């Protein structure tokens, strides 16, 4: 299962944080247009950073430990990383705000 190492940890991140949306009521996934826009804008500088880093040899990806599909020179998992981590951060931030909103309305 070596090639799934990266993908597996991304899936785990989502599984852990999705309850924040559906159980705790964070409203992130239910604002898909705003989410898509924020993700896209944020991805640009970080994908550029990643491409520069790979080009300049700062880091590389172990052969056989990714699925093997690349997009724009980066493993597809790396691009998914730039979706998953921001989604997790947003879910966390919004879930923290739910508590505050609820106690304010009590």
């Amino acid at each position: 299962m070596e090639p799934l190492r990266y993908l597996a940890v991304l899936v785990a991140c989502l599984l852990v944080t999705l309850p924040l949306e559906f159980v705790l009521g964070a409203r992130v996934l239910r604002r898909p247009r705003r989410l898509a826009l924020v993700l896209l804008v944020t991805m640009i500088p970080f994908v550029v950073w990643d491409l520069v880093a790979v080009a300049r040899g700062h880091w590389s990806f172990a052969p056989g430990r990714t699925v093997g599909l690349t997009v724009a020179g980066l493993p597809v998992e790396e691009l998914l990383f730039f979706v998953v981590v921001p989604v997790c951060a947003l879910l966390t931030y919004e879930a923290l705000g739910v508590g505050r909103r609820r106690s304010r309305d009590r």
Partner: protein
Amino acid sequence: MIGEYTLLAIAAPVAVVVLELAVLRTGLLREGRYWAAVAITLAFQIPVDGWLTYAQAPVVLYHPAAISGVRSPFDIPVEDFGFGYALVTAVLLGWRWRPRRDRDA
């Protein structure tokens, strides 16, 4: 000679903070909620990044010249926390930013 990734991992958080303070001015950095979210996400970065950089079977390999060589906790290059902080803050800034007229949306 400081590694390039080390430099970028310092510059990126600074750049994002300057972006907020000087340009976007969302007030995000004054929120307790923001700092709590940062603490939580950086805490989760430890198992996630730890997995990706685990010395026995790393997914990501770093060139020694590009990094400081400080790896903690586990085998995580400390630079990754600078990257992570910048990414999380950038996303939250984007989420919080509203054009003036939409402020209460």
